């Protein structure tokens, strides 16, 4: 009796498997096109943002704009009654200064922490550290700005005896603290995705843990680690609120790490509210936005080329 039931079930199952099902094919088609639209939207949004920024900046770009003035003049007087000047050199230098400063701190600390968490520490510490680092990542940037103004500022003035507390040094530290969680989290993912068989194979050859990390794990996770660093750089270039509060917001070429500067992002954020829509000032701010887009795109592009080169060599 039981045997018969099972036989019948088997027959039904094999009929089901062999049977041609147009419904399933239709479902696959629909799913495929939804996924395709999802992919397409990423392209459309990217191009759309570019076009929008260019469109808003275009009247200025096509008339008064001079690339020489924009990149080499340090005089940024967008609302002067006598003669407006749009020299953004100091803003570019300011952005570069805080980005480089923060990365000098954040890359070694972030990658080092990622390696420690992934390869050296015990499972309990690992859990606690990961939670704390994620918490660090979730602190809003304006809170970092408060820390810059209320903690770092008096510290620099009273302990380091510098006249101005809001400067490149201050902003670099704040930006580093903001980028480190991101670098750690993505870097740790990259290191964890290296298969354990590599670790075992290398250790069974008599390598110490440190040798395994330096010679095997880091080269294997290289692409992910570079991605982690670039996201950190992207964060530093694009961060607005905290640097607006921490840099001192003064248009000048810094002559030391304790000079105040102003960044591209902070300029847009601070001046956008006063610039009437469609005015020349408004258009120059969009030109700055366009420059920021170009900077981040070229960072991504260069890293792409670097990664591809390192693959080809192998």
């Amino acid at each position, binding site marked *: 009796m039981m045997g018969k039931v099972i036989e019948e079930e088997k027959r039904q199952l094999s009929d089901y498997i062999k049977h041609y099902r147009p419904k399933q094919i239709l479902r696959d088609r629909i799913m495929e096109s939804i996924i395709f639209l999802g992919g397409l939207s990423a392209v459309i949004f990217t191009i759309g943002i570019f076009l929008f920024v260019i469109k808003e900046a275009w009247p200025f770009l096509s008339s008064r704009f001079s690339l020489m003035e924009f990149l080499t003049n340090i005089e940024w007087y967008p609302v002067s009654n006598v003669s407006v000047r749009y020299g953004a050199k100091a803003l570019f230098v300011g952005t570069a200064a805080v980005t480089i400063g923060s990365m000098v701190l954040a890359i070694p600390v972030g990658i080092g922490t990622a390696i420690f968490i992934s390869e050296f520490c015990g499972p309990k510490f690992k859990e606690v550290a990961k939670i704390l680092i994620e918490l660090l990542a979730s602190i809003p940037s304006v809170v970092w700005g408060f820390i810059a103004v209320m903690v770092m500022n008096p510290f620099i003035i009273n302990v380091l005896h510098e006249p101005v507390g809001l400067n490149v040094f201050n902003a670099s530290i704040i930006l580093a603290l903001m980028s480190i969680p991101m670098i750690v989290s993505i870097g740790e993912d990259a290191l964890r995705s290296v298969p354990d*068989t590599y670790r*075992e*194979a*290398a250790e*069974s050859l*008599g*390598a110490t843990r440190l040798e395994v990390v330096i*010679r095997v794990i880091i080269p294997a996770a290289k692409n992910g680690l570079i991605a982690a660093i670039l996201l950190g750089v992207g964060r530093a270039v694009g961060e607005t609120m905290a640097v607006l509060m921490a840099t001192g917001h003064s248009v000048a070429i810094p002559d030391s790490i304790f000079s105040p500067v102003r960044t591209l992002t902070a300029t847009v954020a601070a001046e956008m509210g006063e610039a009437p829509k469609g005015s020349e000032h408004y258009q120059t701010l969009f030109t700055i936005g366009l420059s920021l887009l170009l900077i981040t795109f070229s960072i991504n592009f260069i890293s792409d080329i670097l990664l591809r080169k390192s693959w080809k060599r*192998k």
Partner: protein
Amino acid sequence: MKEKIKIQNLTASYNGKSILRNINLSVIQNEILAVIGPANSGKTSLLRCINRMCDFIPEMDVEGDILLDGVSTFAKRDSTVIRRRIGMVSPLPVGLPMSIRDNVTFAPKVAGCKDPVILEEIMEDCLKKSALWDEVKDRLDMIATKLSGGQQQRLTIARALSHFPEVLCLDEFSIAIDPVTTMRIEEILKELKKEMTIILVTNLNFQARRLSDRTAMIFEGDLLEVGATKDVFSGNTQQQKTKDYIEGLFG
């Protein structure tokens, strides 16, 4: 008859589940000892204990001791010294993500050898011993993970030989290699026996019979018996279970 390795009362468990129970086993210098037994018997765990790879697995508890040349390996804090004396070939091929040359010279380099001439000699010698030299000699700078599975497995063997181990542990070395190459490597193992002691974990009973001097049968974490291979494979076993396994009645 010098005892190269002496396993004393070795007991191991993984997450509380017992995987090896009170193993006492000696490996004699310059012999090939085959370890046979059905899947999940603890053969691989035994090898992991021998080269202290068990340190790597936090869930694994190990008791007892393993003596190498009469000296406890478990008492040593620095496991790298022990691992340099023991070569290990894992069942699945692992080409480290670096060039073929760097794969084979990795162990000598971490052991402190810097002379490029010596490194090159070691590399050529090891690749020849693992029957891989002819296939890769023109592309030593290629990344090793691009080799085929079988080639990577032979690379793993070359790597295990590269630090001149006193003991070579082979865990199912032939599952990713074709029969012809397997035979070539088996011939080489018979030669290597003069220089080192070999522990061969295998699921292929014929391989154990062809190669080994003695055979140990492990079943569900217990060492059932150890005997001369010719006795074990001619039906002269102490345990009925071993006989049944060899005759293919279970396993």
